[in-house]
């Protein structure tokens, strides 16, 4: 100890130590900043810049194109189909998946027998990957040998008929998102202060009153967070399309990201794909901004 302080009192060492103190925080920070910059901000900026260039088949920008890529995109009928599909899909999935998992979380957090078992059961869809779930639902929703259509006494070719394919994917995704939403709702409900609930008990409130007037307002920040995540997830939906429908039949499941993906990898049309990425940012950003406007009115921060 004495030795150390003696060393740091010599002027050269003192200076060296000061320099080290300055840069030390950045040594902890650099890995995180480096990878965020390389895989989020760099591609974000590069995508925007490249959308104004002609891009060759290797993905390299070679000539300034102005708005040519955007004009090509906005003149393409498929683009409007994709916008419609993505919005329709988001509209089908977001309210139903949030409502369903909120109800499940409220029930599972009510004191009852077996509520430990049900918590695990409702979390399990989160453990299932998109590709595995897609395989299961491909069989479950099969019009001839699938159990769902047999039990419901219908014969709907969910993934092979253009009228139903998007709906089939919505059913699939509602199920798949239960676990994630349930997890966040459960964590939020457990954070509701006990004394608030107890004072409502003394006032004679029943479970439904307590839920509507106390629990839901108190978990509204989580509800809002999940709403934003669901909107982003809905608009960005692509994996089940890649596994199950490949955008068909008749473009009925071609979503925005799927179109971006096929234009780049199948057609080598990178310019179109980058312009579409930028349009996706704008659509997602606009919807998020609208949600945040609503947040000021509807979300309660205790």
């Amino acid at each position, binding site marked *: 100890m004495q030795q*150390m302080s003696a060393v740091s009192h010599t002027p050269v060492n003192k200076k060296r130590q000061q320099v080290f103190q300055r840069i*030390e*925080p*950045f040594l*902890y*920070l650099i*890995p*995180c*900043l480096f990878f*965020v910059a390389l*895989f*989020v*901000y*760099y*591609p974000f900026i590069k*995508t925007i810049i490249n959308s104004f260039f002609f891009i060759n088949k290797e993905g390299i920008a070679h000539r300034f194109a102005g708005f040519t890529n955007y004009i090509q995109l906005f003149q393409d009928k498929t683009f409007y189909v994709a916008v419609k599909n993505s919005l329709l899909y988001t509209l089908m999935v977001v309210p139903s998946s949030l409502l369903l998992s909120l109800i499940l979380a409220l*029930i599972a957090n009510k004191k*009852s*027998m077996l*509520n430990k078992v*049900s918590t695990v*059961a*409702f*979390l*399990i869809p989160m*453990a*299932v*990957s*998109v*590709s*595995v779930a*897609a*395989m*299961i*639902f491909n*069989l*479950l929703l099969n019009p*001839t*040998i699938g*159990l769902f259509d*047999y039990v419901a006494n219908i014969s709907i070719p969910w993934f092979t008929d253009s009228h139903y394919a998007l709906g089939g994917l919505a059913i699939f995704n509602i*199920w798949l998102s239960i676990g994630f939403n349930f*997890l966040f709702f459960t*964590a939020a409900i*457990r954070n509701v202060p006990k004394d608030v609930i107890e004072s409502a008990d003394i006032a004679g409130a029943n*479970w439904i009153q307590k839920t509507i007037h106390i629990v839901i307002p108190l978990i509204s920040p*989580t509800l809002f967070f999940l709403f934003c995540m669901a909107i982003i997830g809905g*608009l*960005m939906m692509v*994996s089940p399309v890649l*596994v199950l429908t490949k955008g068909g039949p008749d473009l009925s499941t071609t979503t925005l*990201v799927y179109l*971006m*993906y096929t234009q*780049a990898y199948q057609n080598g049309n990178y310019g179109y794909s*980058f312009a579409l*990425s930028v349009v996706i*940012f704008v659509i*997602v950003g606009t919807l998020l901004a609208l949600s945040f406007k609503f947040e000021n009115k509807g979300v309660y*921060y205790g």
Partner: protein
Amino acid sequence: MKKHNGTMEKKGKSYYITGIITIILAIIILLPIIYCFFVSFMAESEINSYPPKFIPKSLYFGNYIQVLCGTLLGRFSINSIILALFATVARIVIACTSAFAFSFLDFPLKKFFFFLILASMVIPGDALIVTNYLTVTSFNLMDTYLGVMIVYFSDAMYMFMLRQYMKSIPPDFRDASVMDGCGNFRFFTSIIMPICKPITISVFISSFVGLWNAYVWPLLITNTPEMRTIQVGITMLSTDENTAFGATMAGAIIVLIPTIVIFVLFKEKIISGVTAGSIKG
């Protein structure tokens, strides 16, 4: 005492009714997985028969044998374990060090860097996938483990969760260790990290499961069968012309087992991880 009795009686009735409702709901929610499990023990003729059966006549192991011996599923699992394990470790190291800097150290532009990293959560990653693909292939990392992993190294959400947790550690700890002449790095490794063990375990679990289940990026960045991950591999068990449901369901069960076991064992850890990262301002 009177009040206590009142709530006990009320609990008695709804305690069982709610229990029955939840168990019915749990069965409905888990039905696709239970169905998948049963179908994995059916022969192809039984699967294709009408009306569809839920419970197999007898235990048929042909699907499992076919998947385990006839495909590269073993190799796919090793790939997935390597990917999930190494990328998770890298993620945790990177998230912990940066969370430590944001919680305990002072430096210029601290707020700016913090929000720069946090704001990356709002940029939808799927729309960046084409550019990231071009970046990673330009590093000649196509079809390599590092190429699959590298885009996952930094994750703003985990950094944020760890920072929230570290912020709750009383500043006295730091003052005391500075007095003892303990450098920042020793303070970080021997005092902060042991305190952060519970949250680190939560992050480890959720990151591992998330990466084990990753699909689109590993599909894009690998193109030889030997490098495929298990998630990509199982979608390739059936081709467009021939859907082998039995084998696919057996593969699905094999893929599901590790994640379901993790969820059942670490349920409370997973929930407390989310609580720690919840937005408290």
